[in-house]
């Protein structure tokens, strides 16, 4: 049985931990709000981009002059996975969920005899995937120094990816990130970004952008400018959703931790009080029996 002093120390330490988790929760809540705002502010751009892209795709009508980024190389031998995770831990299952999805994907691809390459965005995903697939990781993008996520960060990643594609480094590119649904639910998602064509085109044509446009310069030229930008936008959106999701996950994880610490303090306090009472009773009995003996 722990002594009274041990218990006292224990309670003090749990209380200190609780204070830390509480503070982390509040910081995460504040950051979450900001991340959510950023994600919302970025939404109009990606929406309009989707509409414009659908429009042009329609104008070209899947003709031969669509750039390779859109139609693909016609093969699917080499896959590139961009795995976006957080830079920091202590956010529940957030990072491991994304990594697990990516790992399942890798396993399936390898079973089919495909070649796999990985780019890790964020330290945590790298740490997890490194264990099994270190040889496949091409590089790791570090965003730890980045305070506010800007489009330039996404653009840099997109540029690397496109460069690699043009060099024939891969055929199909899939983006892994966590979709921010709500504070308590983030859904790990795999999204194919290269070739981009079909998915985005069919999704938008329903809106019936019927206007006959004039293009300046040619549609093909605009498209070849637009597609790389669209990839950057997709990555940017993934990063923003991830940032919001990370904070959401961290908030609920820290909320849980704070509550657990509270429960623990209660339990320890009860044990402490009981022992103190037992000691007092014991001392009283000793005094009384001592007095009776006289």
């Amino acid at each position, binding site marked *: 049985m722990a002594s009274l002093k041990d218990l006292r120390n224990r309670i003090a330490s749990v209380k200190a931990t609780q204070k830390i988790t509480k503070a982390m929760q509040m910081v995460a809540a504040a950051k979450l709000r900001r991340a959510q705002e950023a994600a919302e502010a970025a939404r109009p*751009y990606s929406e309009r981009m989707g509409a*414009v892209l659908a*429009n042009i795709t329609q104008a070209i009508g899947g003709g031969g002059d669509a750039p390779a980024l859109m139609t693909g190389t016609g093969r699917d031998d080499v896959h590139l996975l961009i795995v976006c995770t957080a830079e920091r831990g202590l956010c529940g299952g957030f990072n491991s969920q994304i990594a697990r999805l990516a790992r399942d994907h890798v396993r399936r691809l390898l079973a089919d005899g495909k070649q796999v390459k990985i780019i890790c965005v964020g330290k945590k995903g790298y740490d997890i995937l490194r264990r099994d697939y270190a040889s496949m990781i091409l590089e790791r993008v570090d965003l730890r120094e980045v305070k506010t996520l800007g489009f330039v960060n996404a653009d840099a990643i997109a540029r690397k990816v496109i460069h690699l594609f043009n060099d024939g480094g891969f055929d199909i590119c899939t983006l892994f990130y966590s979709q921010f649904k709500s504070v308590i639910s983030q859904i790990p998602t795999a999204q194919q970004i290269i070739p981009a064509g079909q998915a985005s085109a069919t999704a938008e044509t329903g809106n019936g952008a019927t206007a006959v446009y*004039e293009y*300046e310069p040619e549609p093909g030229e*605009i498209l070849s400018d637009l597609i790389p930008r669209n990839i950057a936008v997709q990555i940017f959106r993934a990063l923003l959703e991830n940032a919001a999701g990370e904070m959401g996950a961290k908030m609920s994880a820290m909320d849980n931790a704070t509550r657990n610490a509270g429960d623990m303090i209660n339990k320890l306090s009860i044990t402490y009080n009981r022992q103190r009472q037992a000691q007092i009773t014991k001392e009283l009995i000793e005094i009384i029996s001592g007095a009776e003996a006289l």
Partner: protein
Amino acid sequence: MAEAFKFELVSPEKLLVSEQVESVVIPGAEGEMTVMAQHAPVMTIIKPGVVTIKTAGGKEERFVVFGGFADILPSGCTLLAESATHVNDIDRADLARRIQEAKEDAADAKDDESRSKAEQFLSQLTTLEGALLPA
């Protein structure tokens, strides 16, 4: 009083402008153009330059954009800029950095096509800087 139409200037980070305007001057890839209400549908790439907006209230506002594209419809105009800043907030150091980067790009370019592209971008940037400096 000219007819007003809806103009939106969007950068990946946020929606900068969304209001009723009389006319907008856009630095198109193939020359500047002024967009007014009932413009024929046009889609164009924009080069680095200054977008001048004349709002329905008669106020004039200027934004610096670094590439992007514009989607013009009779009912409105959407400008998707790669990055956009209000003229008053433009950071000269940032502009200088972009020019420096463009210079490096031009020097690093492997084939003629990408070099001419980079050089074109560089010249657009320097023109822009020249236009802004006295302001």
